């Protein structure tokens, strides 16, 4: 019988190195287009300023995209955790918003792998990761928690 390849539980508690990523105006415009956004503050600088923003704001879920754009060398699900891209599903996602992220910001991200557990005799594994996003002024902008579900197609053990 083929042994299940489970994720190494010693990754629990691992904190990534801090990674930096710039928030680019062009990408925010692309994101607005790709989501069918009609509110011009999300793609037009003049509209954003008229609404009281210093620059184009990143919409609420964009923090997740920043994390996807800045994978960690240490504690990355598809990297050193060794999870197969073909087996993942998004289980849960949560955001706590402290300050808006804007075009031109340079964000520092740190991710902690908070938990790894299984259900259905190992047929499903769950990876809980918490990420903080802090801007160039050292202001905490977003805390996010994601749960990724990993399917182990070999099925349950035993």
């Amino acid at each position, binding site marked *: 019988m083929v042994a299940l390849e489970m994720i190494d539980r010693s990754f629990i508690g691992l904190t990534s190195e801090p990674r930096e990523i710039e928030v680019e105006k062009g*990408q925010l415009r*692309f*994101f607005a*287009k*790709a*989501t*069918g*956004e*009609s*509110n*011009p503050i999300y793609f037009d600088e003049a509209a954003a300023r008229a*609404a*009281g923003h210093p620059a184009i*704001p990143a*919409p*609420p*879920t*964009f923090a*997740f*995209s*920043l994390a*996807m*754009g800045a994978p960690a060398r240490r504690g990355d699900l598809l990297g050193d955790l060794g999870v197969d*891209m*073909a*087996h*993942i*599903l*998004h*289980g*849960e*996602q*949560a*955001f*706590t*918003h402290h*300050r*808006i992220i804007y075009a031109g910001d340079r964000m520092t991200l740190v991710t902690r792998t908070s938990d790894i557990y299984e259900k259905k005799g190992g047929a499903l594994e769950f990876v809980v990761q918490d990420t903080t996003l802090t801007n160039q002024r050292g202001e905490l902008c977003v805390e996010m*928690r994601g749960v990724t579900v990993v399917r182990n*197609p070999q099925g349950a053990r035993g």
Partner: protein
Amino acid sequence: MSPPALDPRTVAAGDRLPDHVRGPITRGALALFAGASNDHVLLHIDSDYAREAGMGDVFAHGMLSMAYLAQMLTSWAPQAALRHWNVRFTAITPLYATVTCSGEVLETFDAEGERRARVKLHARTDQGVVTLEGEAIVGLQWDEDGRVGNG
């Protein structure tokens, strides 16, 4: 679209947010969202890869529907008023789905010196499948221009 016209002082339990409908989600929409959102998981992009992975065909990113829920929330209240929100992805959103995002105020309460609303969130496909389910906490203090005190 101008700043939200909602008067936050009138928000009460039972209020429904206007539904926000998007779709049908095409292969093109998935390709663009993959690029724009930095999510290059091939299950959403490449039909051959998705088939070999046993998923039948490409399917939508859960985060695409979460972005749609964000649009519903930021059409109702200023983005700076969104304090916290969480969703569970309860079913895969298939190709060609039309997604309806809905929200209902469950309660208003006071926390950290401001009045807030707890909003129940759902996303459903045109087949009636609930794909996202969760809650948002929204601050209820902003002025006529949509400026939130601590934004």
